[in-house]
């Protein structure tokens, strides 16, 4: 697992206060077990070096009006295919469409983002999810928190960002 805490601002989330616990990990575990896997234990912290992503896809939601921030999820295209297949309870031979991949990854970002927003007392407005093969342009110094996760042997990266 890589956890990089660089700042305590943004989204009104005091990441220093996370201490040895990580509510973002708890949220991710709950989202994956309830929506994707139907059982707990298939999402865990990633240990070791991260592979270079092949055809990465990114999905994110932003919070505006109070402690503006962004919740971003990144995974390889092949991982998104399997995520979507699991979300839709599809068989291994069923075709996963591009539209469902965009919808599925966006919804994962949306639900994680909604739950992260609920951690902070400030009110704000959550945007609709956006999905792109390009990483949204956010300065590296605005990274608040990053979590590398192992989902069935595949890398999924969740990160929180400060927005201007």
């Amino acid at each position, binding site marked *: 697992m890589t956890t990089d805490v660089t700042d305590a601002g943004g989204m009104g989330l005091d990441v220093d206060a996370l201490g040895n616990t990580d509510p973002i990990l708890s949220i991710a575990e709950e989202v994956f*077990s309830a929506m994707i896997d139907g059982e707990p234990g298939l999402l865990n912290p990633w240990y070791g070096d991260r592979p270079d992503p092949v055809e990465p896809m990114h999905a994110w939601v932003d919070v505006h009006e109070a402690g503006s921030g962004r919740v971003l999820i990144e995974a390889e295209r092949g991982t998104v295919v399997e995520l979507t297949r699991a979300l839709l309870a599809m068989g291994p031979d069923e075709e996963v469409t591009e539209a469902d991949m965009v919808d599925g990854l966006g919804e994962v970002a949306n639900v994680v983002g909604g739950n992260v927003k609920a951690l902070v007392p400030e009110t704000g407005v959550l945007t609709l999810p956006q999905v792109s093969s390009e990483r949204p342009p956010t300065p590296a110094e605005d990274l608040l928190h990053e979590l590398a996760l192992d989902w069935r042997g595949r890398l999924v990266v969740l990160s929180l960002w400060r927005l201007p």
Partner: protein
Amino acid sequence: MKVLVADDSRVMRQIVVRTLRQAGYDWWEITEATDGAEALEVVNSDPELALVLSDWNMPNMTGIQLLHAMRQQGSDLPFGFVTSEGSTEMREQAEAAGALFLIAKPFSAEVFRDTIDPFLA
């Protein structure tokens, strides 16, 4: 019983419908809408509708705007939110607008049963 599920995500609508089935509501006849505006059209055109389950954050018309519009039109159709945000402020806002409940995503079949069953009695 006819139930409307409104969510701009097809994936999420499918998950909601699947979870309703798992919760035992497989006798419900489900209609779907892709945003609040489409949901309002269904509400206005289907007098047999018995319950609306709606996302909050949707394009064109949000879930809370949908609920306000329904109540302003005099509709007292039972309404519940199924949304990714479950803050105290949103729950209060939902209740004040006339929603019966707010189920936060991610959810389970048990949560659906525990939340919805009391209103079916």
